[in-house]
């Protein structure tokens, strides 16, 4: 068993303060808990992670729920999650159909998430406290794509911030790997995200461009 600590700024640009007031409704809590892989995992979300205090967005579970809210409602026509619509609409469907076992852990202090076989995804301290709310949604989409069957297939290009020359990149945009799914989700959030601010959309654009510039062995040739 690991024990971890974290200092949380109560007011910051991450988005958590405002999402907190929205998610604090039993209908949402039940929906997120039962839809996005929390169900059956009370033990992993207890002991300080927020199970008994899930409206508190300083705690991990509230922050995970914030990402679930963004994932669920960022398309203006959120009820349409058909596969023929943009990924902003069906990102939530991808996550709910591929992650059925979502667990929180300390990790090494900087790790974000890891995907295991059988729908198991672990999220670590960095997921809750290093990432803003759109970045957390992107992570869930990224890990869902791995669960969906697409592993990384290339090494990061020269100069990549993710570790030049190391494995973990996608070969091309057309490979439709986890990096492409995450970047495309952020791109759509920037272009058409609803119920958010221009600042968070700008933040999504910056992160999406970082992925496009650094996570493909062959640069896709465009920017957000």
């Amino acid at each position, binding site marked *: 068993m690991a024990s971890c600590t974290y200092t949380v700024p109560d007011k910051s640009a991450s988005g958590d303060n405002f999402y907190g007031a929205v998610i604090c409704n039993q209908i949402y809590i039940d929906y997120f808990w039962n839809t996005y892989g929390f169900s059956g995992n009370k033990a992993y979300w207890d002991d300080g992670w927020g199970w008994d205090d899930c409206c508190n967005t300083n705690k991990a579970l509230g922050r995970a729920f914030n990402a679930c809210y963004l994932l669920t409602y960022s398309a203006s026509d959120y009820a349409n999650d058909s596969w023929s619509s943009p990924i902003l609409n069906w990102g*939530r469907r991808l996550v709910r159909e591929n992650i059925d076992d979502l667990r929180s852990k300390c990790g090494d202090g900087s790790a974000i*998430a890891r995907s295991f076989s059988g729908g198991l995804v672990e999220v670590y301290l960095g997921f809750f406290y290093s990432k803003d709310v759109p970045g957390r949604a992107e992570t869930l989409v990224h890990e869902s794509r791995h669960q969906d069957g697409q592993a990384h297939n290339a090494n990061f290009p020269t100069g990549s911030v993710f570790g030049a020359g190391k494995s973990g990149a996608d070969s091309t945009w057309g490979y439709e790997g986890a990096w492409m799914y995450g970047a495309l989700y952020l791109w759509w959030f920037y272009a058409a995200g609803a119920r958010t601010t221009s600042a968070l959309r700008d933040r999504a654009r910056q992160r999406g461009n970082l992925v496009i510039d650094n996570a493909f062995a062959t640069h896709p040739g465009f920017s957000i």
Partner: protein
Amino acid sequence: MKTRQGTDTPVVGSVDTLKIKVVEHPFSFRDSPDEHLTALIVTAINHMGGVGEHAEEAYQRALAALRDHVDAVVKTVAAEYSRVPENQYLDRWSLVQLFAELPHPSALATLERILASDIPPERSKDPHGHSTVGEEVMIRTTAVDALARLHAAKIVEAGRILLRYAEHPTFSIRRACVQAVMETGSPDEQKNLQKILQKRGETSLLEIRRRDVREVPQATGGRFIVRDDRKNEPPSPGLKGRPAI
């Protein structure tokens, strides 16, 4: 009454535990005696992360309150940026985003300093998941955005800085500067940029253009059969919650 989840499966073995300490906000604003102004800055940064039908409206109202004192805001934010610890990446980004939202020539020196500063080495053990160098790059590409907005407002000095950092060692920063000059620069500045890129053998950067998301290849979803119990529809997004903590 506390909101709650249903009871759940006990786990055999042990699980991790977490303790958090909450601080009011991540800034100190030492040497900034105007508490009203610093409160307005904190409010604007807090509203960056707004959610709901009126989130953008509230954010723009918070920015409007800063526009009345933009000189003092730029000075205060610039001083604070240099004090925020390196590892508070999102907080540092939020200060730079304010420069982009409130374009003002008095921010030029700070923006140039940000671009000129060395990127610290990678601190993350797992940069694939979370790269601190990546966070540093996003702070700098946001500074490029702020310069592009100043340049679009005919601040010539911003163009000079953008041209200079089109030769930055980091690819994303070069790419962002090149796009900013091509989008906001005069014909002379664009010619100068092309000369710089030719000299560096990097004219391919000119081919990377900003595109509308609708024009690029989309992801193909739905390759697997959906289990019936996962087709449930979400509740409406606007239900009232109780005040959160």
